[in-house]
C-alpha cells in the first residue's frame, strides 16, 4: 500500500469536480449553463495536468479554456437561438 497523503485527497476532489461538471455539460437543457460547465471542466483539467507535471499542456489548456473556448460557444449559442427559438 502506497503512502496516502493529503494531496491524494485533493486529486480525488478535483476529479469529482471534473465528473460532475462533465455530466452537467452533457445533460443540462439550458445551453448557457452547459457552456459554463464546459469552462469548469477545462479549469479542473488544467489543474490536473499541473499535478501530473506537465506545465506546457496546463498552460495551453488555460490559455484556450479561460477565455476563447467559452466565448466562442456563447457566440454560437446566441447566433443559433435566433433560428431555433429560445431555449431549445
Amino acid at each position: 500500500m502506497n503512502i496516502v497523503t493529503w494531496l491524494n485527497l485533493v486529486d480525488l476532489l478535483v476529479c469529482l469536480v471534473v465528473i460532475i461538471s462533465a455530466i452537467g455539460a452533457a445533460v443540462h437543457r439550458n445551453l448557457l449553463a452547459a457552456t459554463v460547465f464546459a469552462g469548469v471542466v477545462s479549469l479542473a483539467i488544467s489543474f490536473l495536468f499541473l499535478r501530473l507535471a506537465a506545465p506546457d499542456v496546463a498552460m495551453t489548456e488555460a490559455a484556450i479554456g479561460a477565455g476563447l473556448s467559452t466565448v466562442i460557444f456563447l457566440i454560437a449559442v446566441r447566433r443559433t437561438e435566433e433560428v431555433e427559438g429560445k431555449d431549445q
Partner: protein
Amino acid sequence: MANLLLELALAIGAAGTLLAVVRLVKGPRAASRAVALDVLTLITMPMMAAYGLYAGRQIYLDVALVYGILSFLGVTALARYADRGV
C-alpha cells in the same frame, strides 16, 4: 511541517471548489452560475501557485499567471451575453 501545511491548504481549497460546484449545479439564475465560475477560478489560481511552492518548481507559477490574467474574460462574456450585448 511546511509541506504538511501546504497540503492542508490545498485540501481546503479543493473542498472550496466542491462548494462552488454545488452553487454551479443548483443556481436557478444565470448570474449565480457566473459567480460560481468566478469563485472557481479565484480558488484554483492560488492552488496552482501553492502546488508550485510544494513541488519546488518555479515554472508552475506561469500557469497560475495565465489564469490570473485571463479568467475575468469568461465572466465578462457571460455578463455581456446576459444583457444581449454579444
